[in-house]
């Protein structure tokens, strides 16, 4: 029996493998796949080919398009790389999310593409990307398609990715304004989020995007709360009324549909995302006022 691991050296080779091989298992950082293999909840079958994505150079890019004001991050970029330049200044909420992921060991292994593909509602990076309005570039032998990050996951561990398809990169606008990510866990490090919120306040378009993690089957965009926030913020003076903040909290709690589990209760999670969204917006507006 031969159980091979393929190491494609380019997007072209990777795409060819996915076209020609009937059964493949994609390996990025391994922080989910290896846990499943170690614990026996997943096995590599004799007819399956493990495809390591590490040696595909196109997956490691971080590109800044100043003309289109676009940041493009390869799916294979790891958390540790998201902590530094240029992501820390161009997409700071993604850097904040990256810093809350696991430990240094996990951050040097786990990738942003893996975070999306594994389709967990608690994905810290996914929450930041959804608030940023990021788009995942999906590639397969049939070609390429662009899917909003919030639409990639369809439920826990389920996604729109086809068997012969992979995430090549993630594109996000460079937003002028303020952005932040907050997360609640049972301790201060090494923790899966009990609730997470990312907020992006755009001074370019006087709009707000609020993303919620761990309060539904997938990371979600709080549409109504985002629209209401965008409309009720006084963008000239960077202020908002206490009543409007309370209304935003309420709209966030309404869209949340969490469950009780071993990490927390649904009631606590709903309450938490409401508080986190309010605090982030308050903090963001204050920091924007301070920098005028």
């Amino acid at each position, binding site marked *: *029996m*031969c*159980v*091979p*691991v*393929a*190491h*494609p*050296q380019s997007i072209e*080779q990777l795409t*060819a*493998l996915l076209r020609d091989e009937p059964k493949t298992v994609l*390996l990025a*950082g*391994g*922080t989910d*796949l*290896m*846990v499943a*293999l*170690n*614990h026996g909840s*997943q*096995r*590599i*079958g*004799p007819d*399956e*080919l*493990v495809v*390591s994505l*590490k*040696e595909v150079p196109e997956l490691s890019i971080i590109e800044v398009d100043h003309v289109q004001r676009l940041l493009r991050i390869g799916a294979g970029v790891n958390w*540790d790389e998201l902590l530094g330049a240029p992501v820390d200044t161009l997409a700071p909420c993604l850097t904040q999310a990256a810093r809350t992921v*696991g*430990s*240094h*060991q*996990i951050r*040097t*292994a786990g990738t942003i593409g893996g975070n999306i593909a594994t389709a967990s509602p608690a994905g810290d990076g996914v929450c930041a990307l959804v608030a940023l309005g990021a788009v995942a570039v999906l590639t397969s032998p049939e070609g390429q398609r662009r899917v909003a990050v919030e639409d990639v996951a369809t439920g826990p561990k389920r996604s729109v990715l086809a068997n012969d398809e992979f995430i090549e990169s993630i594109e996000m606008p460079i937003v002028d304004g303020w952005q932040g990510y907050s997360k609640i866990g049972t301790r201060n*490090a*090494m923790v899966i989020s009990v609730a997470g919120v990312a907020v992006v306040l755009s001074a370019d378009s006087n709009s707000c995007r609020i993303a919620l993690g761990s309060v539904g089957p997938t990371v979600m965009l709080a549409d109504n709360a985002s629209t209401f926030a965008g409309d009720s913020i006084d963008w000239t003076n960077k202020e908002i009324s206490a009543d409007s903040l309370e209304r935003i909290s309420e709209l966030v709690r309404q869209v949340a549909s969490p469950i009780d589990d071993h990490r927390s209760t649904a009631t606590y999670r709903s309450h938490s995302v409401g508080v986190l969204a309010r605090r982030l917006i308050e903090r963001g507006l204050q920091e924007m006022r301070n920098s005028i």
Partner: protein
Amino acid sequence: MTNIHDERHFELTVNGERRQVVDGYPGESLLTVLRDRLGLTGAKGACEEGECGSCSVLLDGNLVCSCLVLAASATQSSVVTIEGLGGSTDVQTAFVECGAIQCGFCTPGLIMAATNLLERSTEPQTDEIREALAGNLCRCTGYGRIVEAVQTVVVQRSQGAS
């Protein structure tokens, strides 16, 4: 040309030596290969899900949990385990002298994490040390003496020792 390696028979570079791995099984972790096939039992296996850090090794200079590395995917990488440090680096000596070890189970992983931190940062503050070691759980010491050991090395190195 896509390189395809046989997952049962492959070579790894561990502590500077080419090592043959035979009869690997599909999905086998680097930790298992190090301990059970290559006889390098310094890296410890506990949670096997990246929580405890006791299996930490350096992979191409990066600190990783060896339990989360597919062994057969690391054929092009350089692996350094606790055995590869020798036994008397300044970090190892400081851990002993500061009493930063008790049962010793977490120690190899913590030594690897501390060694890696001091390569990335020459003068880490206490918060930075604690953050860098957050992925290595110790159930004996309460971490105080571990942080102290790392701080001791920082001071020694700043005074010109290496």
